[in-house]
């Protein structure tokens, strides 16, 4: 048969339409007239890939000739297109035909157009340039009176359409939403869905039309609109809560079988629709009790109705369970859902079992007892022949790992790891093992061995954070110094044993870890001398399979060990060997070692033992070179100008614009890489040890702080988990008691079965008991949160938290260091105090410190100071009774103020997550005192007014109102309308304030209205000064993002400020900006600093500053035209003020 094909292919193009002789009977149904048939049959007959390639190339070249020939009719073109699609599917390039596909869609009749559109949608992707040529055709077809043409155009638009051409077709498609045919309306909705995906802002104005589509009389159109709603609700669930009722009603109708029978699938009513609705409900009901309550009934009904034993029923059940666990919990439903999960897990059908495991993984954190129920099934799944089941089981185990079962679980994970070859799996699993090992490792030996396994398997594919974290953990240690030393010693010993094994190749990253550890901690060894270690490292260095990067690590280790060694024989050999190395880097290192080696004293000073965590003092200004520079200048050398300055000068001379991206001008590496000869050795050493120590240097400061301030008893801003706990705890007690019973029943059953159990069974039981230890009802709660309070020595905080608290701590550190020079020290101080609140003596410290601060700093708040010191009477050790006599305050006032302070502290406790100002009295009379403070929340400014009733009488209908101000948007927080203020009590009113447009300072005023004993109404007015700074928050972005944002902003302002002596260097200037203006310091590059902030709600402001002698050059940019000016004003005020 292949002969026939060969012949046809070489035949004249005139034979093009000639019929092919039929193939076997198998091809009987295929169209005989098509050349495609011939091609397909030809290919099937071939035996080798090479032959196929030859045939297709021939086919393609004949096609190329045909499509470009002017005589080719559209009908022939259609034929060619089909064959081109086929060739592309086989993996050959047919790009020459793309343009013809577009032409065919444009010019052909319906038959040809359809193939043309199909070819376009298969050939092109949405960013393809040729797609622009299709726009006209689409526009024309959308306006056609032929239904089929309109449908074809809509189909292609829903698949691929150039984003920038959406406006050209959008009005046409909007019109189609009112088309009389439901198929057109449905396709139009899907086209709009597509637009929403690729350019959401372009379809924003037609959201109202989506609602109409949702109410369409045709089920298909309504179902199509759900795609849009699912997506929009995923992005912002709060905006669509009002639709919950509608979705619930639709689902009820669907479940109740009210839809046309057409939509049934295997006698289940519209399963796709049901699942889509369940998903939407899950998103809407998340963390929202009121909305969730609306859907309990329909969820219950869905669970009940899905009883058929068919895949599609299980699909609905699965989605139902997912939704029930997503929304605000209801114990009845949770119980049913748990039963459902059980059905899945115990099912003999493997697909259902898999989904059962997946569901368990999802719910396990909310309800760990479920895992206990199914422990035997889980054990079986661990040894399942299908790797996918195994993997899902491991994922489940990963979620229930605790200090007691870690060894068994990690062992199972390692077993799986050794079998798998897929890179993605390895990276994923290795990361999990490392995470668990750091969190829960039971002892040193286990930890080091597990990490060894991680490094040798994960090798060079794992995330670079893993070795970095591991080294940091080793270097920084924990609270117990002897423990730390043992861990390090164990690591050193284990690496030496590993290196003794012959003919084993370790991944480069592992070798790097080893060399760093050996270099740092070999001094802990008793038996082995440094020489022996150096010999081993030397052997590695001579190995050809080792990369030059690893060699740099190795030689750095040797350098560290050299001062400890007594005989330098081997080191000398090494120097000899590598000073003539062809690798420049290695030669450099060798020379450094050589020179250092000549001066042992210097070397010992330079490389002290076990000092990897110590801060390194670097003279970044290179002041020791001043003499050298002066000499150069006196000999007539030009003064040095930084790179960007030279560039700017060059630009201003040439009077052309700089088209290089802004970010590039910051490219100077390290400190002063190319400024001085001393810089070279600093820079070149970076690949080895100093990179590590450099890392240490920047991190050590933060980490010390974490332990002090952000520890277990410290202040941990974890609002989410807190609310999560609250919402999850209610069902737990009932659940756990039930589970306890089940558990007991299980153990009883186990006991009765002991006699009959086979040995294998026993093993499984054993495994189960070791795996699920710590999951029992006693520990349920600990898993839900308290587990974290158990102190594990290898505990590591999650990265996000770490960096966050790191930043916060550094702020705090700065506060401490420059305590007295700050004017806003009060809030910082308060902030500091909050972290101490849990200590037993918090009251004492709070008041005494506060008064101290206020005494020295804020004279304006003197009255409050007096009150405060008054209050500290309760702490007799500090103030004796005589003090009270001095102030002579009226007794009642003192009492009320004391209460006020109490209240303030209680309020503060609630709001410890946010920084806030001091409580200041804004107005008062004999009965009432109004105080206020600001809470600088991340997303808004929260103003709190607390109204204290000093009198012994009850006040009626107290009402606080804020005058509307044009620059603010003020929203009342719920729960603050109080008709009655009881005697001698305090109530608070909360308002969140948003800024409408920028300003420098503005007054916010209001009044308090109350009735006293129903007699007369009293009105008290007050006002508060708000400044722009109240609405500025740090904006945490990366340097890269800064560069991008910088380019995209048009409004900029530049200004030079002269600085006083005390702050004439960049760090202190940045510190001031960070503390007083709440700008976030992104990066410091040489003498330039990058900062960013945002003006609430979300206007970014960027600042680039540079220090020249005593001049600070500020350059602001923002998307808002006025913000840079205001920021500059504030900056000037701050810089000149301090």
């Amino acid at each position, binding site marked *: 048969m292949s002969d026939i094909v060969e012949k046809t292919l070489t035949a004249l193009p005139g034979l093009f339409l000639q019929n092919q002789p039929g193939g076997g009977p*198998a091809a009987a*149904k*295929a169209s005989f007239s*098509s050349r*495609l048939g011939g091609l397909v049959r030809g290919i099937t007959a071939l035996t080798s890939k090479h032959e196929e390639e030859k045939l297709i190339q021939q086919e393609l070249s004949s096609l190329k000739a045909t499509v470009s020939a002017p005589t080719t009719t559209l009908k022939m073109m259609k034929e060619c297109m*089909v064959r081109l*699609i*086929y060739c592309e*599917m086989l993996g050959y390039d047919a790009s020459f035909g793309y343009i013809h596909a577009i032409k065919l869609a444009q010019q052909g*009749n*319906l*038959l040809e157009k359809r*193939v043309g559109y*199909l070819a376009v949608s298969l050939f092109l*992707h949405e*960013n393809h340039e040729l797609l622009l040529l299709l726009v006209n055709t689409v526009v024309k077809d959308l306006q056609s009176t*032929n239904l*089929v043409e309109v449908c*074809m155009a809509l189909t292609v638009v*829903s*698949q691929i359409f150039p984003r920038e051409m959406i406006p050209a077709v959008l009005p046409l498609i909007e019109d189609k939403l009112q088309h009389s045919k439901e*198929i057109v309306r*449905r396709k139009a909705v*899907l086209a709009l869905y*597509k637009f929403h*995906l*690729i350019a959401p802002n372009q379809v924003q104005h037609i959201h109202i039309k989506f609602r109409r589509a949702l109410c369409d009389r045709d089920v*298909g159109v309504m*179902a199509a609109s759900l795609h849009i709603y699912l997506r929009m609700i995923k992005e912002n669930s709060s905006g669509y809560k009002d639709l919950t009722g509608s979705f619930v009603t639709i689902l009820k109708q669907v479940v109740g079988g009210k839809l*046309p029978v*057409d*939509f049934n*699938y295997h006698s289940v009513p*519209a*399963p*796709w*629709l049901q699942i889509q609705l369940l998903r939407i409900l899950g998103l809407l009901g998340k963390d929202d009790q009121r909305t969730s309550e609306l859907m309990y009934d329909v969820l219950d009904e869905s669970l009940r109705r899905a009883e058929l034993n068919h*895949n*599609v029923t299980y*699909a609905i059940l*699965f*989605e139902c369970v997912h939704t029930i666990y997503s929304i605000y919990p209801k114990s009845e439903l949770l119980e049913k859902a748990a039963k459902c999960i059980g059905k899945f897990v115990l099912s003999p059908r493997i*697909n259902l*079992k898999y*989904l059962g495991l997946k569901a368990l993984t999802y719910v396990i954190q909310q309800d760990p007892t479920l895992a206990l129920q199914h422990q035997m099934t889980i054990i079986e799944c661990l040894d399942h022949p*299908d790797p*996918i089941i195994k993997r899902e089981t491991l994922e489940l185990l990963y979620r229930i790992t605790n200090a007691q079962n870690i060894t068994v679980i990690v062992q199972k994970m390692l077993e799986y790891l050794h079998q798998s070859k897929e890179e*993605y*799996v390895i990276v994923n699993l290795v990361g999990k093992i490392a995470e668990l090992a750091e969190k829960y490792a039971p002892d040193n030996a286990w930890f080091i061995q597990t990490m060894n396994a991680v490094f040798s398997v994960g090798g060079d594919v794992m995330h670079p954070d893993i070795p970095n974290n591991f080294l940091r953990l080793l270097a920084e240690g924990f609270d117990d110094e002897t423990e730390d030393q043992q861990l390090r010693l164990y690591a050193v010993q284990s690496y030496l044993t590993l290196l003794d094994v012959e003919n084993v190749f370790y991944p480069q990253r592992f070798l790097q870890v080893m060399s760093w550890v050996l270099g740092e901690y070999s001094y802990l060894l008793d038996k082995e001398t440094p020489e022996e270690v150096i010999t081993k490292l030397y052997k590695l260095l001579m190995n050809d399979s080792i990369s030059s990067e690893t060699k740099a690590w190795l030689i750095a280790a040797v350098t560290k060990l050299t001062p400890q060694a007594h005989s330098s024989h081997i080191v000398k050999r090494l120097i000899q060997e590598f000073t003539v190395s062809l690798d420049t880097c290695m030669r450099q290192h060798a020379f450094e070692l050589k020179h250092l080696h000549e001066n042992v004293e210097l070397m010992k000073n330079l490389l002290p033992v076990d000092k990897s965590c110590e801060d390194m003092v670097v003279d970044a200004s290179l002041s020791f070179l001043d003499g050298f520079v002066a000499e150069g200048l006196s000999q007539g050398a030009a003064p040095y100008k930084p790179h960007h300055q030279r560039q*700017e000068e060059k*630009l*201003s001379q040439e009077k*052309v*614009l700089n088209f290089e991206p*802004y970010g590039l001008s910051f490219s100077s590496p390290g400190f002063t890489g190319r400024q001085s000869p001393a810089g070279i050795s600093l820079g070149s050493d970076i690949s080895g040890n100093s990179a590590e120590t450099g890392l240490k240097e920047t991190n050590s400061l933060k980490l010390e702080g974490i332990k002090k301030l952000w520890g277990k008893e410290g202040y941990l801003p974890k609002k989410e988990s807190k609310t999560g706990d609250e919402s999850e705890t209610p069902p737990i007690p009932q659940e756990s008691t039930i589970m306890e019973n089940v558990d007991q029943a299980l153990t009883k059953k186990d006991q009765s079965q002991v006699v009959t159990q086979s040995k294998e069974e026993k093993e499984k039981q054993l495994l189960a008991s070791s795996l699920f230890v710590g999951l029992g009802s006693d520990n349920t709660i600990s898993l839900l949160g308290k587990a974290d309070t158990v102190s594990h020595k290898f505990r590591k905080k999650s990265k996000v938290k770490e960096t966050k608290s790191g930043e916060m701590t550094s702020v705090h550190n700065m506060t401490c260091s420059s305590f007295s020079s700050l004017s806003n020290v009060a809030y910082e101080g308060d902030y500091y105090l909050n972290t101490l609140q849990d200590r037993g003596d918090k009251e004492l410290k709070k008041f005494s410190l506060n008064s101290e601060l206020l005494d020295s700093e804020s004279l304006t708040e003197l009255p409050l100071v007096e009150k405060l010191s008054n209050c500290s009477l309760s702490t007799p050790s500090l103030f004796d009774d005589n003090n009270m006599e001095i102030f002579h305050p009226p007794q009642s006032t003192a009492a009320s103020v004391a209460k006020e302070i109490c209240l303030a502290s209680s309020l503060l406790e609630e709001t410890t997550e946010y920084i806030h100002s001091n409580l200041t009295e804004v107005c008062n009379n004999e009965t009432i005192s109004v105080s206020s403070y600001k809470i600088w929340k991340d997303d808004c400014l929260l103003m709190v007014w607390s109204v204290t009733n000093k009198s012994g009488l009850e006040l009626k209908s107290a009402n606080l109102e804020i005058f509307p101000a044009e620059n603010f948007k003020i929203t009342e927080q719920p729960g603050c309308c109080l008709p009655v203020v009881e005697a001698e009590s305090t109530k608070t009113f909360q308002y969140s304030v948003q800024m409408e447009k920028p300003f420098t300072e503005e007054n916010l005023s209001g009044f308090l209205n109350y009735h006293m004993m129903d007699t007369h109404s009293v009105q008290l007015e007050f006002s508060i000064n708000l400044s722009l700074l109240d609405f500025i928050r740090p904006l945490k972005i990366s340097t890269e993002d800064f560069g*991008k*944002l910088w*380019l*995209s902003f*048009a409004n900029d302002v530049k200004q030079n400020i002269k600085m006083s002596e005390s702050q004439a260097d960049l760090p202190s200037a940045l510190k001031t900006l960070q503390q007083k203006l709440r700008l976030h310091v992104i990066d410091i590059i040489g003498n330039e600093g990058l900062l960013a902030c945002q003006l609430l709600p979300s206007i970014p402001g960027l600042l680039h500053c540079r220090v020249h002698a005593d001049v600070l050059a500020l350059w602001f940019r923002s998307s808002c035209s006025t913000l840079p000016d205001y920021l500059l004003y504030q900056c000037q005020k701050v810089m000149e003020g301090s």
Partner: protein
Amino acid sequence: MPSGSPPHSNTASLPEHSDGGFPSAAAAAAGQAQPLQRPAAAMQFMLLFSRQGKLRLQKWYVPLSDKEKKKITRELVQTVLARKPKMCSFLEWRDLKIVYKRYASLYFCCAIEDQDNELITLEIIHRYVELLDKYFGSVCELDIIFNFEKAYFILDEFLLGGEVQETSKKNVLKAIEQADLLQEVRYLFS
């Protein structure tokens, strides 16, 4: 948005108006040139291939380069064919979920995201097979090989842009027949 920023040669010859800054239009254009990360569709792609590993149909709902498509196809075909018949119909592959099912000599294989519902995807495959069966009348692999464009037409009426467009079997087939019929008529008279 302006339809295009002025060419650089023009801006360069403008008189100096900013000390080293960027002309705002060009800067704005540079900012917008960053392609937005497009959220992926519910279904990422669908592949049909034979027991011999020959691709019979491919539909991509996410934009990928030809090279990536080829790589993904090769890897997936290998992985799926290596699986034993009693094994689970789902696969984790990179960060995607693969749902596959074999019908006679053809494998139907869909990629979805991890949080999607695997079982309903399996039913999507089944519904597609039902549609093919109804259209061709007890469909076999050869029908799809020789009339793959028809198979694509049916798929496009059932799934659009990775989402289920129409679940009613009757409606899908009606739409196809309508297009076919109009074509036939034109065909006869042309």
